[in-house]
């Protein structure tokens, strides 16, 4: 209780209440004074003076000697301001505000057993008005100088200077004394500095004309690196040696919050009290002990749970009320207010545990600073939305993964200043953390402008480590490849450092985020930067979810995992859904959406209403696509279907459900250990209407359904005018023409590679010498049999019609007789390539039961062109 114990508590309390009021008045006054600067009017200074004076008096009565002491120093400074002996320029406002903050801390500490020191602020205030003659004060920074400079200096430059054996000094110049009176120019000073060392920093314009320096100007500060001792430096710079303040670069940047802050303080604001001059936005103390109380976190957690139960009961009650509301409409009104009140209670109790994200940030700043210094990098950490509040538990859970991410960004993402310069980027790398709230979710993105991640490197590492097969990497999109960093053991770092690069961590980050019921995804552009996007629920206990149904059962889908919902009319489904690479997909917003039926996924038996026999029958068909010939009886079943677009990492897929109910706030109960193998569910909840309902989990369902995101993405790309070369990968369906040249010798050729296909009778083929021709629309075209072009078994003429194909992009007019055209097939598996396959054959595959060979149309076209040319020249010779 500080020094107040010698008085009756009531007596002291009255004074303390007055002091609090005065402190409240003082702050806006000081801020207004700072805004006006040298133009400040007497009234404002007098107001501030009166407030400080009354604080001093009150502190005296209440026996608060420290506070009185500090108020006295402050009063002296205000007196100097009032008498115009001191100008209100930097650092005066800062020091005054720091004094005010310290006074607040002192008052706040009365409620605790600690007694913060006020020496630093007192010294700072006194330094402002320390002057030998006492007529004009120069407002020196004093003990605050190092703090202030620490935030302006480049640690890299200081480090370099120190490594060269130089010492770092801050020098304060007085414009009046050091320049005007001596008729010395700033430029001369700079020449002197450069002759004995280097100028690291100056808070004034080095080209400043002497005329702009007036008596009202605050001190000028320069930081100099030199091998000289302070006395010598003072001599060279022609200042008193007391103006030379040695700086210790190891100790000065980002000074620790003042250790006098009450330890273990639960108020996030209190930790900022010692950093009064900090430019950080949330550094200003907001000490209002009268309006806050400390509560045990346990109690809040209990209240949270109770609020959860209350919501639950409300939901149960509501479904009851809906039934009886038909009889008594008044019930509805009561229900409504119960609704509102419950929601408000839940909201407020949840807010009890909320803390701003900014609380985490100080930790990151320190990490970024330490790490970038040790790596010789220069990194700016920017935070947007630090005021967004998160559940304490969520915030705590975020600390570790975020620390890891920030480290990785500094260590691997941001390049050294040199290589940044070479890449045409600013030397300072930027890490931007953005926090925003949307609904019940918090979106956090952390991005850098560094070197980015090369998807192929990650893919290769993952294959090397045996985490994925080469084939599956081949079919992945870049985004999927980059997201492989979340697999255990994958690292992009070329070198392992103390802090990161061992490939341990990103998987842990992902697990941590998932434990918070959050999602994490990463995207990166090599050379441009990387962005990690994290979405987590504001709180863990209650989620809002959509209740859906299939086969008479109900399920909940958390909103968090949903992107959107749309409805397909009866019958529309069969026409909209098609098969791509063995998966059902739906055309969706210009792209393709893999879809899966919930009842198929969970193996739920469904009934449908047969419109012809007018009876309910068991649904036996599980495939979605492909309309049946004639009328589809099933289209009468139900009222169409709902497609719920779910997010799984970077992928989207559609869940098809027959019924959709309401949106509800559900209280999540985790799955018991016996159910932990049910990947499709993340938990359960109790619903008023239908008892226990399971909560569906999008990532789990996507895994269970083995959705082919890669194949679908490639098909999507192809349809958007992607390259035909992709057909080599074999996984997107290719339309092929199947023909047999010799009996049981089957070939296929992609339809896309053909310009034309003719079916002719053998009699249409004319033979002239060794050349064969056919007439087509009045022109004569050279024909080759396939065995003339590539080494295959010859064709035995059967007398039936034969196919002639004309390769696309052929330089000459010629066709190939390919024997019997059998079919066109859509082929979506991969073909086997055989290293010893003859020229003109790309590979083999089984289609149906037939072994077919793929023609290499490129080779064939070249060969035909050669053949036509040699034939032409031979004819020429014969003539």
């Amino acid at each position, binding site marked *: 209780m500080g020094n107040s114990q010698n008085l009756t508590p009531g007596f002291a309390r009255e004074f303390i209440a007055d002091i609090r009021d005065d402190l409240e008045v003082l702050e806006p006054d000081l801020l207004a004074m700072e805004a006006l600067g040298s133009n400040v009017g007497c009234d404002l200074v007098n107001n501030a003076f009166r407030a400080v004076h009354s604080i001093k008096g009150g502190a005296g009565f209440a026996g608060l000697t420290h506070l009185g002491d500090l108020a006295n120093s402050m009063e002296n400074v205000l007196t100097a301001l009032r008498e115009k002996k001191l100008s209100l320029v930097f650092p005066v406002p800062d020091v005054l505000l720091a004094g005010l903050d310290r006074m607040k801390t002192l008052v706040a500490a009365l409620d605790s057993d600690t007694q913060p020191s006020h020496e630093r602020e007192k010294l700072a205030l006194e330094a402002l008005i320390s002057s030998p003659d006492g007529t004009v004060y120069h407002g020196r920074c004093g003990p605050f100088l190092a703090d202030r400079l620490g935030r302006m200096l480049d640690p890299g430059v200081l480090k370099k200077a120190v490594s060269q054996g130089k010492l770092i000094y801050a020098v304060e110049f007085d414009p009046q004394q050091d320049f005007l009176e001596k008729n010395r120019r700033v430029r001369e000073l700079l020449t*002197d500095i450069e*002759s004995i*060392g280097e100028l690291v920093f100056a808070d004034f314009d080095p080209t400043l004309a002497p005329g702009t320096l007036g008596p009202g100007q605050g001190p000028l500060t320069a930081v100099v690196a030199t*091998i*000289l001792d302070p006395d*010598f430096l003072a001599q060279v710079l022609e200042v008193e040696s007391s103006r030379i303040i040695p700086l210790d670069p190891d100790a000065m940047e980002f000074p620790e919050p003042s250790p006098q802050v009450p330890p273990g303080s639960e108020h996030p604001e209190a930790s900022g009290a010692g950093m009064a001059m900090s430019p950080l936005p949330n550094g200003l103390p907001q000490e209002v002990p009268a309006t806050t109380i400390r509560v045990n976190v346990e109690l809040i957690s209990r209240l949270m749970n109770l609020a959860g139960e209350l919501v639950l009961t409300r939901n149960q009650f509501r479904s009851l009320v809906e039934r009886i509301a038909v009889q008594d409409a008044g019930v509805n009104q009561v229900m409504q207010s119960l609704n509102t009140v419950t929601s408000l209670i839940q909201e407020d109790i949840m807010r009890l545990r909320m803390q701003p994200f900014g609380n985490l940030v100080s930790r990151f700043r320190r990490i970024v600073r330490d790490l970038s210094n040790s790596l010789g990098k220069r990194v700016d950490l920017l935070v947007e939305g630090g005021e967004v509040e998160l559940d304490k538990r969520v915030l705590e859970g975020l600390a570790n993964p975020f620390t890891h991410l920030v480290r990785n960004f500094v260590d691997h993402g941001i390049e050294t200043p040199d290589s940044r310069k070479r890449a045409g980027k600013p030397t300072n790398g930027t890490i931007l953390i953005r926090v925003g709230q949307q609904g019940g979710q918090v979106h956090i993105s952390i991005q850098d402008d560094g070197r980015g991640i090369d998807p192929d490197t990650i893919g290769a590492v993952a294959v090397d480590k045996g985490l994925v097969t080469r084939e599956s990497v081949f079919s992945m999109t870049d985004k999927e490849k980059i997201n492989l960093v979340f697999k255990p053991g994958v690292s992009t770092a070329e070198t392992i450092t103390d802090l990161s690069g061992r490939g341990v961590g990103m998987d842990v980050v992902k697990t941590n985020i998932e434990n918070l019921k959050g999602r994490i995804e990463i995207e990166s552009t090599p050379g441009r930067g990387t962005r990690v996007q994290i979405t987590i629920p504001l709180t863990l206990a209650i989620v809002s979810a959509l209740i859906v149904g299939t086969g008479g059962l109900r399920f909940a889908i958390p909103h968090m995992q949903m992107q959107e919902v749309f409805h397909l009319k009866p019958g529309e489904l069969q026409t909209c859904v098609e098969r791509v690479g063995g998966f059902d997909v739906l055309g969706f917003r210009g792209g393709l959406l893999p879809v899966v039926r919930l009842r198929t996924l969970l193996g739920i038996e469904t009934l449908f209403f047969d419109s012809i026999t007018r009876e309910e029958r068991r649904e036996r068909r599980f495939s979605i696509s492909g309309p049946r010939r004639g009328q589809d009886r099933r289209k009468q079943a139900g009222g169409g279907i709902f497609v719920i677009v779910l997010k799984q990492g970077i992928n989207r897929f559609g869940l098809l459900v027959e019924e959709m109910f309401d949106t509800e706030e559900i209280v999540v109960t985790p799955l018991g250990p016996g159910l932990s193998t049910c990947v499709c569910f993340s938990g359960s909840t109790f619903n008023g209407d239908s008892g226990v309902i399971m909560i569906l989990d999008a990532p789990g369902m996507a895994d269970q359904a083995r959705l082919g995101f890669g194949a679908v993405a490639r098909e999507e790309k192809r349809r958007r005018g992607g390259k035909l070369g992709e057909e080599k990968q074999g996984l997107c369906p290719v339309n092929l023409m199947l023909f047999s040249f010799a009996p049981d010798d089957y070939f296929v050729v992609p339809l896309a590679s053909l310009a034309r296909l003719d079916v002719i009778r053998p009699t249409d083929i004319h033979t002239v010498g060794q050349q064969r021709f056919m007439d087509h629309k009045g022109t004569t075209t050279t024909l080759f049999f396939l065995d003339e072009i590539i080494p295959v078994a010859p064709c035995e003429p059967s007398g039936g019609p034969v196919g002639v194909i004309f390769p696309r992009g052929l330089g000459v007019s010629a066709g190939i007789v390919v024997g019997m055209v059998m079919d066109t097939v859509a082929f979506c598996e991969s073909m086997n390539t055989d290293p010893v396959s003859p020229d003109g054959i790309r590979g083999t595959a089984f289609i149906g039961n037939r072994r077919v060979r793929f023609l290499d149309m490129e080779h064939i076209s070249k060969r035909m062109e050669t053949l036509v040319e040699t034939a032409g020249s031979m004819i020429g010779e014969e003539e």
Partner: protein
Amino acid sequence: MKFLVVDDKASVRSTMVDILAGLGFNDVTEAVDGSDAWFKLKAEFEGVKPETFDLIISDMEMPAMTGLDLLKAVRGDRNLKETPFIMVTSINTKETIIASMKLGIKAYIIKPFTKESVAAKLVQAGFLKKTD
């Protein structure tokens, strides 16, 4: 490491030599003033080349050839100009400080010096590793 210690006062010289020996630098040649030092740095005897020194620690105020003169001469010599130089001094003017800094010295040792201050300057000049 071969050092050249230049001072016109024998007492100061031997103090410096003792301190250097205490810091592990035993190969120290003494010169009684600037011109003696210059002689030791430059003169050839019967075809024997002068010794080369890794560091010159010279007093500033000496008769005839001052420390600053010696520094100027060393910096003006083709073979010697890279030799590290530490200036020992008690008083100084702005002009001499700037002049010697411009010629390139590794450090100033301020008289009266102690083992600690000399060690600190040798650390600064890169001849000793920091031990703390």
